């Protein structure tokens, strides 16, 4: 689950009221975000159910909080879809994971011990690591400081002695490379494969 923003006090009516007030704006956002009217309806319903289950209350920005929750629900669904697609694709191969040796020394791996998701994640980690290491020097430094070590753009700019917009350009370049490395050959092609500002979709 995508972590939800912390909500300190219990007063469900506050968020419920904000929901009623902003439902159509949130729905419009979800339509734009998913480009799928039915999916947007589903998610706005799910948001309502979540709200009823959460003991949450007066927060500084109830409206923003609801949008954020809605956005996170989209992310969760996308991730779940991606995982399901990856599972479907690798099922055949995974079911033949163990190749017994002639002397029968190979033992079965407890499937609980090595969930295929963990293996897929490990694979993805390696791909990411390779892609990061293959980045152009400047982009790699800026990317690692910002995305891996968590420095702000301003801190990265100071550390590398370049402008903030220089940092942004480096990071955009890095993300472009990583997108290619990860999404274009990602599990089951489950990710959106359109390269928005270069070649258009290839499937």
């Amino acid at each position, binding site marked *: 689950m995508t972590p939800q923003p912390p909500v300190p006090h219990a007063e469900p009516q506050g968020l419920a009221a904000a929901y009623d007030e902003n439902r159509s704006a949130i729905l419009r956002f979800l339509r734009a975000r998913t480009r799928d009217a039915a999916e947007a309806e589903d998610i706005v319903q799910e948001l309502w159910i979540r709200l009823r289950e959460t003991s949450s209350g007066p927060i500084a920005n109830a409206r923003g909080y609801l949008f954020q929750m809605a956005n996170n629900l989209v992310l969760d669904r996308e991730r779940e879809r991606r995982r399901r697609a990856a599972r479907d694709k690798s099922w055949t191969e995974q079911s033949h994971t163990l190749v017994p040796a002639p002397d029968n020394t190979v033992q079965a791996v407890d499937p609980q*011990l090595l969930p295929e998701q963990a293996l897929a994640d490990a694979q993805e980690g390696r791909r990411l690591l390779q892609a990061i290491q293959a980045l152009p020097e400047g982009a790699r430094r800026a990317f690692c400081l910002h995305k891996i070590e968590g420095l702000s753009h301003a801190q990265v700019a100071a550390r590398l002695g370049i402008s903030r917009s220089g940092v942004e350009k480096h990071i955009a370049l890095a993300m472009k490379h990583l997108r290619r490395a*990860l999404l274009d050959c990602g599990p089951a092609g489950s990710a959106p494969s359109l390269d928005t500002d270069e070649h258009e979709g290839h499937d």
Partner: protein
Amino acid sequence: MTDAVESGAQAGVLEAALRWHAATVNADCDWDAFTLWLEADPAHQRAYAQVAELEARLAQQRPVLQQQLREAPAPGSRRWWGGAAAAAVLLATLFFGWQRLPLNASVAQDYVAGGEALAMALDAGVKVTLAPGSRIRVSGHHQEKMDLTGTAYFDVPHDPGRTLAIVAGGYVVHDIGTRFEISSAAGELKLAVAEGEAAVDLPGAEQQVRVAAGQQLLVSGAPLRAEYASIAGDDVAGWRAGRLVFHNEPLTLVAAQVSLHAGRAVTVDEAIAQRRFSGVLTVGDGSQLAARLGEIMGLAVQVRGNAVHLAAADSRR
């Protein structure tokens, strides 16, 4: 925020999507402006969806990436060691790269084994034997972090207060006291335990994968596979006694180990990369290893300069 985002949109859809992603981390984001931006062009929505997905996957891998990127030398700095194969080299480098915050700064040492195995004694009675052609970077205040390229044998006295973390083949092996061998090739790992127990982190896994005495774990292939086999204690790091013992290992990992002892690159044709090999090879002076492997497996052995390429016998390439 909105102005900044709009000027970003002119600079590039991806840059704008990155800015919006950063903005949505705050509840105070201008959600209506974000909605308008998403509606303006299907390309905006696609770019944002990709950025959001990429960020989510990065976030999930971040702890492991952080460790691996800190330990791994920056690309390009690897070049120096390619020519250093002749003798064992010991280099102490101040491990204070740009990626390290000052508090974490510590001295890292690189050990490289040339044509012969290199036995090393580290802090707290930890003994490491590097196979020929292998390299290890040791860091941490108690020499508890290692980054291995190639093959090594570890003998670690039990000390509940200290855990070794050894990065190899892109995986992290943990150990508190045992004797074991790690062999690694690009993305592949063999962990064979003679005594005690060791564990491997697979990024994103709920728990570590444990390997007990008398077991070996192989991690290889695409999609990734992990499998256990039994192994006799004497066969763990058998190269210390002049033999290489393989239990059902993928040919690429076998070739990586053979390369170390042969002192030249042994490559495997992609078509047969996932074939398995079980058997014992006598190391000798290393020069016959690749030919012997090819002979046993019925492969074509092609000598290409100083490298040896193994291919299917009917391969005409």
